[in-house]
């Protein structure tokens, strides 16, 4: 670790010496870009790590959930207002997702507060979607709720029947779900790259300390931090969060102690998918376009999984740390080894860094940076 830092600092000093271009602004920009990318990976990696922690499944479809979240945000933002029946259809799912969230605090889906909240949400969402062009924040929230419901649905339809099956069957099912969503996206959304450059507040230009970019530079890390803190609060402070931690330790015992493990798993998928949707929407805003559905989720998804493993799968802080490691290795490392007169740079290899790091970590320390030892028992 120290050696890597020493090499990086040495390179920075060296580059600063050979060319004025490599000054504070250059490295500052690389730093902030890395932070941004790391935040996006973190949002996806949290979903992987939560699901793995509870049902020991590498949710291959998570990258595609991320893609769906991005496209839903895009369509809710650009295509609204909808006809009333389409708006109503969306709103039913949005309200259901909202009820699942309210359930955290009341403990029961049939609680009057939860039902009332769902009804209010149904009316609010129908009204918003059928009368006006919703703004980006509301589109993002709606898309998060919709994607969360999609996560619950995936679990119910594809994974729940296989709770007791061998792990390879579950993994193959996850691959099938991922492939299904890719092609379904291709069929329903679009089959080409979609520009996504809305003219709103957070895409307005911004200049900090010589680095000119837009407000996303601030918004992405901040929104990520808020969501991660909210998730941590949920996991540590609420009853359902406690049940979730208990299930992650030992699902069978937790079930015997009265924890409804199926509900915990559904919650896990809901939260993981919501975070992935937020990540997807911000990914699209950050890069100014959504890649075509069949490929958009694959690389971010698999890199985020690598991040979860690097940090220590099953651990929430581990996922964030791992995501930052990957974000920095992809962005900062390529900035430290740029194209110069006598060196061609390493930019075109940056997609392979995550895999190489993953393999190194798995060989040296399979439990990851902060994870516990998960070695197989007899």
């Amino acid at each position, binding site marked *: 670790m120290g050696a890597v830092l020493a090499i990086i600092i040495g390179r920075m000093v060296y580059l600063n010496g050979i060319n004025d271009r490599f000054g504070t602004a250059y490295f500052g920009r690389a730093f902030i870009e890395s932070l941004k990318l790391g935040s996006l990976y973190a949002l996806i990696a949290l979903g992987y790590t939560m699901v793995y922690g509870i049902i020991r499944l590498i949710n291959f479809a998570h990258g595609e959930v991320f893609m769906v979240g991005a496209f839903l945000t895009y369509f809710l933002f650009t295509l609204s207002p909808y006809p009333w029946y389409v708006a109503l259809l969306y709103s039913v799912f949005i309200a259901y997702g909202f009820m699942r969230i309210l359930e955290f605090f009341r403990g029961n889906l049939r609680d009057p507060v939860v039902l009332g909240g769902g009804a209010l949400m149904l009316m609010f969402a129908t009204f918003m979607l059928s009368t006006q062009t919703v703004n980006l924040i509301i589109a993002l929230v709606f898309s998060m709720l919709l994607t969360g419901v999609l996560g619950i649905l995936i679990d119910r339809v594809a994974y729940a029947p296989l709770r007791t099956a061998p792990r390879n069957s579950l993994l193959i099912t996850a691959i*099938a779900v991922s492939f299904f969503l890719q092609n379904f996206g291709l069929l329903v959304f679009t089959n080409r790259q979609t520009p996504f450059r809305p003219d709103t507040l957070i895409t307005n230009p911004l200049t900090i300390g010589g680095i000119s970019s837009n407000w996303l530079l601030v918004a992405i890390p901040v929104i990520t931090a808020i969501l991660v803190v909210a998730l941590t609060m949920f996991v540590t402070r609420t009853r359902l969060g406690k049940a979730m931690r208990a299930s992650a330790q030992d699902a069978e015992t937790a079930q015997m102690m009265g924890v409804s493990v199926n509900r915990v798993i559904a919650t896990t998928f809901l939260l993981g998918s919501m975070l992935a949707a937020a990540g997807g929407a911000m990914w699209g805003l950050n890069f100014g376009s959504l890649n075509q559905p069949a490929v958009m989720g694959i690389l971010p998804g698999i890199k985020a999984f690598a991040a979860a493993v690097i940090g220590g799968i099953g651990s929430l802080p581990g996922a964030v740390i791992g995501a930052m490691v990957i974000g920095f290795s992809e962005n900062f490392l390529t900035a430290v080894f740029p194209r110069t007169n006598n060196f061609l740079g390493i930019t075109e290899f940056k997609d392979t860094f995550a895999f190489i790091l993953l393999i190194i970590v798995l060989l040296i320390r399979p439990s990851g940076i902060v994870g516990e030892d998960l070695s197989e028992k007899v």
Partner: protein
Amino acid sequence: MASVSQRIDARTQELAFPRHRGRNILLTLGGLLALVIILWFLEGLGSSKLNQALALFAIWGVATVSLNLVNGTLGILSLGHHGFMLIGGYTTGLLILSETARDRILSSGRSSMNETTLGLSLSRGLDLIGLDALTTPETLWIRFVIAVLVGGVVAAIAGLIVGIPSLRLRGDYLAIVTFGFGEIIRLSASTRIFAPLTNGALGLPGIPSEFGKSVWWTFGFLAITVFIISKLKYSSYGRAMEGIREDEIAAEAMGVNLAYHKVLGFAISAFFAGIAGGLWVSWLGGVRLDFFLFTLTFFFLVALSAGGTGSITGVLLGTALVVFVRQYGDPLEETYALATWLIIAGVTLLLAAAATYLYRTFQRQRPRMHPAVYGLGIVGLIAVLVGWLAPNLGILDGTFRGFGMRAIFLSVLLIVIMIFRPEGIVGRREFNWGALFGERPDQPTDEERKQDAWLSNAQLNRPGGAAAAEAVAEVQAEVPGKPLLETGDEPVEAEDK
């Protein structure tokens, strides 16, 4: 009276040379002949679509049978098969690329290849070592076979490089790492280091396609692959691999070298994947990076799971299914009216509801009218009704193209298989002639029962024991599974004192 060791020898002999061996060999040869006649007949029909489908079945068969060695026999989920196929495909392509294609690549300004890499030609190499008889157009097939084999060897070396570090990992991590390697291979093929060999995103056009599209060549490779892999499966190596699949820790305790067998299986699988890659680029008539997407491995996974992971017979059945959907599934991807799509979707949901109901009935699950049945049925009914009435109501006019429907169909199929029949159509059973004649391999014959009685009861192996063994075998034949030692009136040890 034969000693125990002699009886063990006899038993070993019996296992090594099973009954009806001569008959089975004759039947196999007859079956091959029948296959040749059928292929000859089908090729004679002259439908190029059918020929292509048959050749594709054989090529993908090579890939799935080799993937089955890792996923089925060794029990490791490998997701990097497309990467090894890519290596084999590019090697083959580079070696047999025609001189005119080389000139065209060199003269086009956008190519990333140079004189040196374009000089990597099999015909030039053979010319160099004096074998210029093999460089004529008539001997292209020899060069093709050499190129495909070299492709296989290069892929096997890649398999070793991938396998040695990563096979120390367990289960699902290994799946991710193999997937990662598959993607690394694909992503790095277009980078600066490898672009001179792969020609970057442009690929290598103009690979001779008379071999990959020929039913005879591809089925020949398939037959050899199936022969070698099934021999391997029933050898001591194969049994060690199956032991690893069933329980790694127990296999290690029995003296199986885990790393050695895993890496061996991985390398052999990669070798045949490379061969499949070589045939695949010949079938396609060119090499490009997007011929080797993860989709390929996904199709193979569907074939394995549908047919029966671990069974060569099953895998070939599954491959036939996948190839059929891929080659004859075009009607799924055409443009229909929206209302038609709605009716199709509704009918699918109704069928799913009916299937769920029947499944619950046969599995004796109650209630038979599960909410899933209601839900699917009602939604399906609404969809059918709306689709049916839509033209009259004037809604849903417009058309919709089912782009990607085949892949959706296959992924839904895979999910359904995994939920309802995870072992696939045939499970782990293999085709054998005996089963056709009503022989039941799981039931030992009288002679075997007698020998088993001898082998498991050493006390019977002394003067006068033969009669006891007969008695034991008789009892066992009547009451299968009855413990042997309960047949005597008193414990055998008592006599010794």
